[in-house]
């Protein structure tokens, strides 16, 4: 299947996905289940990665900008900007493409090869809508919370460096993260992440839903889902940054 056919296939699947659910009650149940699975269950990994990356950015910034000609608040300022503008939206979604994306692709792929999706279709259930829509909406709902959580824990990671090392004082770091703050940065970060969340879930669902074969193909679909959604996220990152910041 060539790229154009894939795009057509993906668009058809999304058309089928975004329709009225057969049962709102069942949709609600699935949606809440996915909120928990994709959102709440992702908090530990988001926390761990953000704290450490926040700390590392703080250390790197301090080492590379240590100069009598540069203000000491620069470290906190650069940490904040890096976390808000890039890490907590784009990089976080790349990481979650690995966790959430592969989980979705393998779950739906396994349902496909064990005929569970055929069973839904034969019952007259819109299987794409029943399986995919709650996943997409749940992750898109949760991503602003995950991004905000990541920014907060990342900045706390940097604060930890200021608190437990002598590289920078907590006061300097605090002044830095407050310096020249634009609330629009947060909005920009969340807007980007909403697009990335849709990319991760819809592409993973597409690869899972269209699996043919056995366990080997499910594994392959899971890998393809992560690789392709990562590449598309990076592509959209460039485009959205140009559109939203210039």
């Amino acid at each position, binding site marked *: 299947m060539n790229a154009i056919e894939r795009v057509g296939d993906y668009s058809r699947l999304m058309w089928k996905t975004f329709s009225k659910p*057969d*049962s709102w*009650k*069942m949709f609600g149940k699935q949606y809440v289940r996915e909120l928990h699975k994709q959102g709440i269950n992702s908090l530990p990994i988001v926390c761990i990665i953000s704290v450490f990356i926040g700390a590392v950015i703080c250390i790197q910034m301090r080492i590379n900008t240590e100069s009598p000609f540069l203000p000491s608040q620069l470290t906190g300022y650069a940490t904040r900007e890096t976390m808000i503008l890039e890490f907590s939206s784009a990089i976080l979604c790349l990481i979650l493409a690995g966790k959430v994306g592969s989980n979705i692709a393998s779950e739906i792929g396994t349902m496909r090869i*064990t*005929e*569970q999706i*055929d*069973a839904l*279709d*034969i*019952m*007259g*259930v*819109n299987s794409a809508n029943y399986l995919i829509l709650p996943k997409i909406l749940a992750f898109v709902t949760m991503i602003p919370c995950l991004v905000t959580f990541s920014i907060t824990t990342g900045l706390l990671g940097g604060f930890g460096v200021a608190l437990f090392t002598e590289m920078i004082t907590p006061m300097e770091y605090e002044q830095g993260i407050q310096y020249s703050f634009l609330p629009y940065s947060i909005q920009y970060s969340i807007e980007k992440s909403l697009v990335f969340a849709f990319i991760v879930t819809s592409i993973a669902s597409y690869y899972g839903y269209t699996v043919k074969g056995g366990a080997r193909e499910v594994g392959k679909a899971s890998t393809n889902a992560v690789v392709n959604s990562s590449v598309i996220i990076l592509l959209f990152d460039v485009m959205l940054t140009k559109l939203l910041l210039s």
Partner: protein
Amino acid sequence: MIEVKNVNKSFDGKQVLFDISANLLEGHANLIIGQSGSGKTVLMKSVAGIHRIDSGEILYDGRNISQMKSNELNLLRREIGMLFQGSALFDSLTVKDNVMFPLRMFSNKSEEEMEERARFCLERVDLLRALDLYPSEISGGMQKRAAIARAIVLNPKYLFCDEPNSGLDPKTSLLIDRLILEITHEYNITTIINTHDMNSVMEIGENIVFISKGHKSWQGNNTEIYDTGNEDLENLIFASDLYKKIKKAHQMGI
């Protein structure tokens, strides 16, 4: 009754079914048999509306599925129950929730009424003791019975069974066959069974369609099958020594 008229089906330019016509009778177990790769699964999936046919007609009590729009097809599918080869139970749901799933999707019944109906169907297949177990916690035969309960929970007019005995021991196979036949007669269902289990053919073959290399080669019932004069069918049915002896005994009137 389901009427199959001059059905042709191909995949990627390779024709799999050639001009197949057959009547699948209401209140009877209709078996589609044939060697592996003969096209019987494609025929069953085409009749069930999973595959779109290239040409011909499939009429469900006079309703042509090849001319139906997707919403009409979805409505028809609510009259269809299907038992898949691997049971296809939802592994994240318990047996009870699996059986209640079609009710939750399509009925306006209260939770108590749905549970009562699910219990009735599970009792019918003698599986009440597995209500709260997950599919991975029960045996293959129990999974098949749970799948039958799920397939009949909405009172289907048509029941499709794809190799219902695959992976089961002979005793359990017989139980499943008899259960399908009982349900077919009890609820007057048009049941279509895709199988190459010769025990099933002999036990419940009320209307048998034999497919050979994509063509309908013979149609009859399990009493007529002993003397068809069809070489391909005889090679399939009486391939083993045991069935050769059974045929000989039948011909001798024993």
